[in-house]
């Protein structure tokens, strides 16, 4: 699949991996690719975001600020489950913050991964980016298609990042189209 990706899109994925690892993420999502794309030197996404008054630092902050899916203590209590007790037990066994997704100390036996695997949303985003490129009859998938894909997949964390930055789907569409118009033919 990556053969059809423009260099800047591949770079966005590579940079996204760096960002995800730096954030201590367990899996690699579209939101990390988004940061990678925003940081891309003169990428379509960077230009589109710039038109919308958003820079890479803001995107990264917004991704860092994404709340982890919280555990619903009230709903669990209604089932007779004391979340505090479960949390205490998990932390006793696995360390502080274990139930809230804080990574445990890596054991000496765990080999460092060469790359973080994509999560389902990340994979879906790249597939959707491909479909956008096909729809628009573009030869290569670039970060513009990735940005459009994120907007389409509105239930993903990456889409929430764009929302939190005050970017409406229509504006993103227009900005990407304008960025494409400004660049030499793909």
């Amino acid at each position, binding site marked *: 699949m990556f053969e059809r990706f423009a260099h800047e899109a591949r770079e966005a994925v590579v940079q996204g991996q760096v960002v995800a690892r730096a954030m201590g993420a*367990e*899996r690699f999502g579209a939101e990390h690719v988004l940061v990678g794309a925003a940081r891309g030197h003169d990428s379509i996404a960077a230009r589109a975001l710039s038109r919308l008054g958003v820079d890479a630092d803001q995107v990264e902050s917004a991704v860092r600020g994404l709340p982890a*899916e919280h*555990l*619903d203590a009230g*709903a*669990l209590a*209604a*089932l007779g*489950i004391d*979340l505090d007790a*479960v949390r205490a037990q*998990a932390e006793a*066994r*696995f360390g502080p913050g*274990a*139930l809230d*997704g804080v990574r*445990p100390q890596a*054991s000496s*036996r*765990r*080999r460092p*991964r*060469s*790359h973080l*695997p994509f999560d389902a949303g990340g994979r879906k985003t790249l597939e959707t980016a491909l479909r956008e490129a096909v729809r628009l009859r573009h030869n290569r998938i670039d970060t513009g298609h990735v940005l459009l894909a994120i907007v389409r997949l509105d239930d993903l964390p990456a889409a929430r990042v764009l929302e939190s930055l005050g970017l409406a789907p229509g504006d993103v569409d227009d900005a990407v189209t304008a960025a494409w118009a400004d660049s030499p033919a793909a």
Partner: protein
Amino acid sequence: MSDLLATAAAAEDPAEGLRAVRALRALADRLEALHVARARDLGWSWQDVAAALGVSRQAVHQKHGRGR
């Protein structure tokens, strides 16, 4: 009569039940991730983990990591 109907309607509303299911599933997922990681650290194979969870090896491998 309308009180009775209102109560009946509320009892039929699956929203609470579904909310509880969602919460339980999120908790189960968190615990699963912790225990699977621990098992792998201890040298369990994906097959061992899958057997303990009662799912396929592929399902566990897909969910908890490739390239590990």
